[in-house]
């Protein structure tokens, strides 16, 4: 068995219906071992449903899902020893303390590393002796985070794990996940916080209405999209406005801004240089822009992720 060649998560054509509602409509998702994958999509796009199928607590109606090479439903018990999960909305037993809840959840995974647990309780500034009914949402979230991050799991499945955390604790979370990623653990991070995903993830999968619309490394995705350029030209835009390869052109006196495909960037920069710009700022598309582009325009229906990426580029050009 070659563990390195087995993807941590491999999902193809996943379909899930709830009555008349189709929650997943042929979703694809692949996370390699050691990869930190951002999982993005608007509310109701099917992120949590996908995660519930991967956890073996919901069943797919069609399609394939493999978790660490195993069947998430049939081999749930064996697989769950090797993964850890944090939900976005943690509900705890009101009469048990946070510390008790951490130990129960850890034990059900298969044991707890006390040193590691105590270290994380310390780092997340959690009082483990308080009854769960007195915890705020953020503190309940910390309980699930400590239980998951203290484990020796090969794969972490995190569903909006930082909802309710303050920025300080978000920072602690980012640090801990980075450490785990350095140790070669795989992570699936579903999140709405773009800064968090950009900091942590090497790749992202963007889904919409139960389908994958974009998947790849962040660097690749940025190349597929246009760079924003804003420049101050003493002579104004002039003949620049006639270039066909500039998009979203806006001129305000000497200030000119536009977007340009990466492939055309060299030609455009040469043109600009001849106009002696006083200042020039070029920014690659942010994850937020990538994300919003998918939801700002109507996309044609596509069958697979690669097709979606190409199609989105085509429609954007």
């Amino acid at each position, binding site marked *: 068995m070659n563990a390195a060649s087995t993807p941590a998560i491999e999902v193809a054509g996943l379909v899930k219906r709830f009555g008349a509602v189709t929650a997943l409509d042929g979703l694809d998702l692949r996370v390699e071992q050691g990869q930190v994958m951002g999982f993005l999509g608007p509310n109701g796009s099917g992120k949590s449903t996908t995660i519930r199928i991967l956890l073996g607590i919901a069943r797919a109606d069609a399609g394939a899902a493999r978790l660490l090479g195993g069947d*998430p439903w049939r081999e749930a018990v064996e697989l769950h020893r090797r993964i850890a999960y944090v939900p976005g909305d943690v509900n705890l037993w009101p009469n048990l303390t946070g510390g008790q809840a951490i130990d129960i959840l850890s034990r059900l995974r298969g044991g707890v590393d006390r040193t590691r647990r105590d270290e994380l309780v310390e780092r997340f500034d959690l009082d483990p002796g308080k009854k769960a009914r007195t915890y705020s949402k953020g503190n309940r979230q910390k309980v699930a985070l400590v239980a998951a991050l203290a484990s020796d799991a090969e794969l972490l499945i995190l569903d909006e794990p930082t909802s309710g955390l303050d920025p300080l604790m978000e920072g602690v979370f980012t640090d801990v996940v980075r450490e785990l990623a350095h140790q070669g653990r795989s992570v699936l991070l579903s999140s709405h916080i773009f800064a968090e995903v950009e900091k942590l993830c090497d790749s992202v999968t963007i889904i919409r209405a139960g389908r994958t619309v974009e998947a790849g490394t962040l660097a690749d995705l940025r190349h597929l999209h246009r760079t924003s350029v804003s420049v101050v030209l003493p002579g104004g835009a002039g003949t620049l406005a006639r270039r066909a390869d500039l998009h979203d052109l806006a001129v305000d006196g000497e200030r000119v801004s536009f977007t340009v495909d990466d492939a055309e960037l060299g030609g455009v920069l040469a043109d600009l240089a001849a106009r002696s710009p006083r200042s020039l700022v070029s920014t690659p598309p942010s994850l937020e822009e990538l994300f919003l582009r998918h939801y700002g325009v109507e996309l044609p229906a596509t069958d697979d992720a690669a097709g979606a990426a190409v199609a989105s580029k085509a429609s954007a050009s």
Partner: protein
Amino acid sequence: MTALAPAPSRPTPATPGHTPPVAAFTAFPDLTRFVLRRNWLRLAIWVIVLVGMVAMVYESQRVAFPTQESRDAYAAVANTPAVAALTGLPYGAGTLGGILNIKIWMTLAVSIGFASIFLLTRNGRAEEENGRTELIRAGAVGHHAYSLANQLVVGGLSVAIGLLIGLTCIGLGLPAEGSLAMGASIAGVGIAFLGIAALAGQLTSTSRAANSLASIVLGVSYLVRAIADVQAEGDTPSPLSWASPIGWAQNMRSFGENVWWPLLLLVGLGIGGCLVAGVIESRRDVGAGVLPDRPGPARATGSLASVLGLAVRLERGPMIGWLLGGLAGGLFYGGVASAMSDLLDSGNAYAKAFMGQADSVLDGIVGLFVMATAMVAAAFAVQSATSVRLEEASGRLEPQLAGAVSRTRWALTHYLVAAGWGIVILVASGLVFGLAFAASQSDPDQVPRILAASTAYIPSLLVLVGVTVLLTGWLPHQAILVSWIVYGASVIIAMFGPLFSLPDEVIDATPLAATPRVPGVELQAMPLVVLSLVALAFWALGLLRFRARDLTQA
């Protein structure tokens, strides 16, 4: 990790399949300990109360019937339709064991049935509903491990209570086989309703619906065997008795013939229910019921978007359900009242315990039945009034109060819906009762008489709701539990207080028993005025405190 199959080149389709038996129960021992740890106090209370009741009632009966002559005299008159209907067909009333059976068996059976239902739902569907099962199942936990741990603990409670009842009876000097049969029949009812609760928890998707569904089955089982016991020939119940799980357990005839085989039916229903529940569980998603949720309207109508509108909408299901239950009860009682009184010996001193102070047997039975409809109406009212605490405990109250709504007005609206609809149920079932009874007697004057008897319970219903109002104000964390304890104690004392040889002052201090049992006795104003004043005080004190204290979530 040796158990893992080699990685296939292509992912295999996620087709439904059966979980290997070992993996399905992984972590079962850990989860069993966990369920015990969460519930040990509740379990201990059930054991102490139910087993303690046996010892207490035995002692009171030993004092009440000290000689064989006194027991023989009782046996000659014990078999009355009212006793048969409420506490089961009497038999063997010439022995202390038989008398113990008559006095306490049905209370134990119904109580253990509810214990199974509420405990199983609390650790089953309720856990799933609030998302904690998902957290547990994300661990290395078999599909059925949590459910099985829950079922084992709740089943273990029945076995423990049954064994302890048997041993207690033997210790008190009763015949060994009868003692064990009594314990086993009680345990059997607990196990049978464990199976029913397990099924209800799979069919519904909320804990409230699961509890309601299983409780309805328990109520129907009680009613079916009541009809069978009333239609008995001698001390053999009608065959209808076999249509009810409680009837199966009665047919074990502890301290009588001690028939053991019906225990197989009871245990079979329990295990069968759990097995079918397990099959359903392995085919569905965590959190889902069997029936998918249907979409509802995208907008709230103007009337719904108000405090009153929301209160009524949230209670709509129970309001309709309890009203139908009350009407069915009224119809049933009205139809059988005179038939029952024909069977009853008016000189029977023990029947008097149930009849209150009525001079005529028929009036006594009518009074008893009217009280039974009042119990149904009050049960709705108490359940509905606890919604105030439920809304607070779940955190749903805070966003409502963040609107321009006063706390007092919000709470009062909910309490008025509870009390108001309780009164509607009371009066409507009294009216149906009166119409059915008048028809059977060919006497239209019975309608206003019975209606008057029903309305006399309005103050006591307001007191029972007032208990919830008071507790919600002062003891929010215990409010729901204690409300039901008070309600249950009021019902048991009003029904069986005289049988338990409780002093009259104690009996009359409870709200249902304090109400004059019209038409058997005069409608006196004094008790009703006192009850109304008590209700007013409870409501006022409870609301004042609710306005002044901090809101606390569960």
